């Protein structure tokens, strides 16, 4: 039992830390919440230490705890570390933005940390119940964060939509889980995997399983935000304060990916033939709708929202290429490609929203495409960082976004899904247009005369500017040397 607790060390640290922060914050002096901010960062650092400690303690072995409700494996460790990084960067980028708007309150920090706890529970879940528990903890925190700016009608509306649709998706997921539970008699994912093989081959049981599977895939699709379960994404991204959009658009994608891996791959791999077909439809529709609709957007946040939809569709290409004709020789390659894609996407997404936060300031929201006009004249360095971000999102080498696309496309081609790969590259061409448009605005257009609307980076702290620069450069460096991260993903997937 003692060892069980040790496996959940990062979660425990975070829970204790978040609770303590909530209380301490009331007593801390200073309007700018400097102390709370640093405490939150320290908690994240401690969690990272905890995760590394567990990783070292288990020597990378997959270890179960709490009657197999909880699993500690390399994939969960890696995703957790990435999530700490994303949350920490989110804090740094959004600090000034939140201060300017009076939103940097204790609630924000503790909600963020609890949301992270929810993600971590999802990443380490080995039971339908644990998955659900983590998902709800994450979602409830996010609903509240979207509505953080309670005087804003748009935010409140976005939170309401998110909540209603999110509750529906949770319901669907639970319903699907109950069906699978009914068929297999267990909630533990590894047990489900053991029992489901014979059932999947049984003609009378199979339809029943697929019925449950459909609901589970719907719930997953909602969390990933892929078409046709994407309706909430543009509105929530647009309505939420940009700092919260940054949070929603980054780390939770890692959790959603983990959930997909746990449910579909760990649990229902014997139904791969069925869920892969569903993912094909989701993937193609997402790439098509996401990329085409993004072109029509004039609002940057909405554009990035549709771009997320398209990217998640692309990521699904990896997930659906694992098992070919009942043979999973290349499965690890394909899932590793999807994981690499997700990690790279999060890195790009953090940077893109970070730029939006940097360009906003007191009384001015950087939301429209026009706000980026002539950035190269005002600040060539950050224009270059955005250039890297955009070319990476578009998947142009030598940025890392290209290798993410390469990995999933290679998985699709290896699985014999050449037509899917062709569809994917054609839609990525469509996508290139709107990313190019941003580069065009920054480099080819003259800055707006209106000085108040002029982008400026001066108000940001030195550390934040350094981090954003590092974020941009990382895209290039990882693009020149992608091997390390790719192998890490492969090792993580192999350990499943």
């Amino acid at each position, binding site marked *: 039992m003692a060892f069980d607790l040790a496996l959940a060390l990062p979660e425990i640290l975070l829970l204790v830390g978040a609770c303590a922060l909530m209380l301490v914050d009331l007593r801390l002096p200073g309007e700018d919440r400097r102390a709370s901010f640093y405490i939150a960062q320290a908690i994240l650092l401690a969690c990272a230490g905890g995760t590394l400690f567990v990783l070292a303690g288990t020597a990378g072995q997959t270890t179960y705890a709490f009657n197999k409700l909880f699993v500690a494996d390399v994939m969960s460790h890696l995703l957790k570390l990435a999530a700490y990084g994303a949350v920490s960067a989110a804090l740094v980028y959004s600090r000034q933005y939140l201060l300017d708007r009076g939103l940097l309150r204790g609630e924000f920090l503790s909600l963020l940390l609890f949301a992270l706890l929810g993600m971590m529970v999802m990443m380490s879940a080995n039971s339908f119940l644990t998955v659900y528990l983590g998902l709800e903890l994450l979602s409830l925190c996010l609903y509240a964060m979207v509505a953080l700016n309670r005087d804003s009608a748009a935010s409140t509306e976005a939170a309401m939509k998110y909540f209603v649709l999110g509750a529906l998706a949770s319901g669907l997921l639970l319903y699907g889980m109950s069906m699978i539970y009914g068929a297999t008699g267990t909630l533990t994912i590894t047990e489900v995997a053991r029992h489901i093989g014979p059932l999947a081959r049984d003609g009378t049981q199979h339809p029943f399983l697929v019925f449950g599977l459909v609901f589970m895939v719907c719930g997953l699709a909602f969390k990933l935000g892929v078409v046709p379960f994407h309706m909430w994404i543009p509105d929530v991204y647009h309505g939420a304060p940009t700092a919260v959009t940054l949070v929603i658009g980054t780390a939770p994608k890692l959790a959603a990916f983990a959930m997909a891996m746990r449910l579909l791959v760990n649990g229902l791999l014997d139904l791969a033939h069925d869920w892969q077909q569903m993912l094909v439809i989701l993937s193609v529709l997402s790439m098509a709708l996401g990329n085409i609709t993004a072109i029509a957007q004039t609002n940057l946040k909405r554009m990035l929202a549709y771009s997320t939809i398209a990217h998640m569709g692309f990521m699904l290409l990896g997930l659906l290429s694992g098992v070919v004709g009942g043979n999973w020789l290349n499965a690890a390659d394909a899932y590793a490609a999807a994981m690499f894609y997700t990690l790279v996407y999060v890195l790009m997404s953090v940077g893109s929203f970070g730029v939006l936060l940097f360009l906003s300031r007191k009384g001015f929201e950087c939301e429209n495409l026009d706000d980026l006009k002539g950035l*190269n004249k005002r600040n060539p360095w950050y224009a270059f960082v955005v250039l890297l971000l955009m070319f990476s999102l578009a998947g142009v080498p*030598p940025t890392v976004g290209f*290798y993410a696309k390469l990995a999933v496309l290679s998985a699709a*081609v290896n699985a014999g899904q050449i037509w899917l790969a062709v569809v994917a590259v054609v839609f990525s*061409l469509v996508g*290139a247009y709107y990313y*190019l448009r941003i*580069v065009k605005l920054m480099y*080819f257009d003259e800055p707006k005369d209106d000085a108040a609307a002029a982008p400026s980076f001066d108000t940001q702290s030195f550390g934040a500017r350094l981090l954003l620069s590092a974020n941009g450069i990382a895209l290039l460096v990882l693009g020149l040397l992608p*091997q390390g991260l790719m192998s890490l993903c492969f090792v993580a997937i192999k350990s499943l």
Partner: protein
Amino acid sequence: MLLSLAIWVPIFAGLLVLACGDDRKAELQRTLAFVGALGGFLVTIPLWAGFSNATAAMQFVENLSWIPRFNIRYHLGVDGISMLFILLNSFITPLVVIAGWTVIEKRVGQYMGAFLIMSGLLNGVFSALDGMLFYVFFEATLIPMFIIIGVWGGANRVYAAVKFFLYTFFGSVLMLVSLLYLYNKSGGSFEIMDWWKLPLPLDTQHWLFFGLLFAFAVKVPMWPVHTWLPDAHVEAPTGGSVVLAAIMLKLGAYGFVRFTLPILPDASRGLAWLMIALSLIAVVYIGLVALVQTDMKKLIAYSSISHMGFVTLGFFIFNAYGVEGALIQMISHGFISAAMFFCVGVMYDRMHSRNIADYGGVVNTMPKFASLMMLFAMANCGLPATSGFVGEFMVIMGAMKANFWLAFAAATTLVFGAAYTLWMYKRVIFGAVANEHVAELTDLNKREFLVLGLLAAAVLFMGIYPLPFTEVMHASVNDLLRHVAIPKH
């Protein structure tokens, strides 16, 4: 090591120029860029000096593991086909830097940096022997060119830049899928030379042929996917047009020799009729289109398409004259089109007009310029003793071996080429001084004279004594033709 230097010296010089800061340090940036470009040229000279003509094997090979996860290797090497392009590219880059010395006034560092980085990337394309490395360099060149056209271009530059990018990106993503397919079929290898030996059924070869065709045909550009080129050329600044015409167009043609012909020999032979037809349309129809242009840059752009039609024609008649002639034509076109665009640039900097109608009688005020441009115009028509003649003559000879009427149709280019080039030359240069702007023109300054003089020397040398160029490529071309002759299915 030499090839790595040829790639990375210009790139690092470019980054250094970018790091210098803004226009307050423009003079320093110019000097640095020139030193970098010259250094980039100097490191490629040993490639020529140390090259062995006796073998078709790759030389100056570097082979390191780059991304073991996908078995992607940093594998560089040159043979008689690719070596000349690296030299051509490194030779053109310093000229571009010199030509932009005073003309570019805003954001000098970014301009010079972009050209240097592009120069290194282009060397990478020509020396990559790993399919994915090739693709990375091939695609990466789009970024600096997009910026160059969009920032320093003419009035309609945004349209041209976006059109350029999307057109070429479309071609290359289909190539990406083809490369991944080959990777899969060859059991996880991106080595281009492994793919040469890979047996492929005819159906598959056809699919792959079209997958690669889009990428290369757009770059060449072949009719009917050529429409981006006139826009891009017209809007690009002089240096951009020069690099686009002299080097970037060659990427597509080079792709045909490196990938399509040896990897898909059966499809290449089976579909040669299509390629020949498209090439002849480019030669004849685009030649006629060039005749009616009123904009000088557009005229030269169409002339480029027409000349590149000659190149693709030479490749797909599958004999040594044709292929070597096409390669010579590519090098020669690199010099001549660069020179022609520099000439237009010289006039544009003084008059701010590219319209033929705005000129007339330039010879009266710019005699030195007029005589140099005369040489380039003649070379563009394929006059003997200029480099333009050698390639065209060899391709026509090759075509004659294949089919008389083919050679006949191809030879019309000599008529059309002379017609549009000389007619433009006559209207711009000869006659009475057309207006007071022409009367105020000043002749070439030292810098311009240096650039055009060097190109003139290259054009004449290659026209009078082409042997050094052809003997370099003999072995490699024969090897290539051997690959094409062996059925793979």
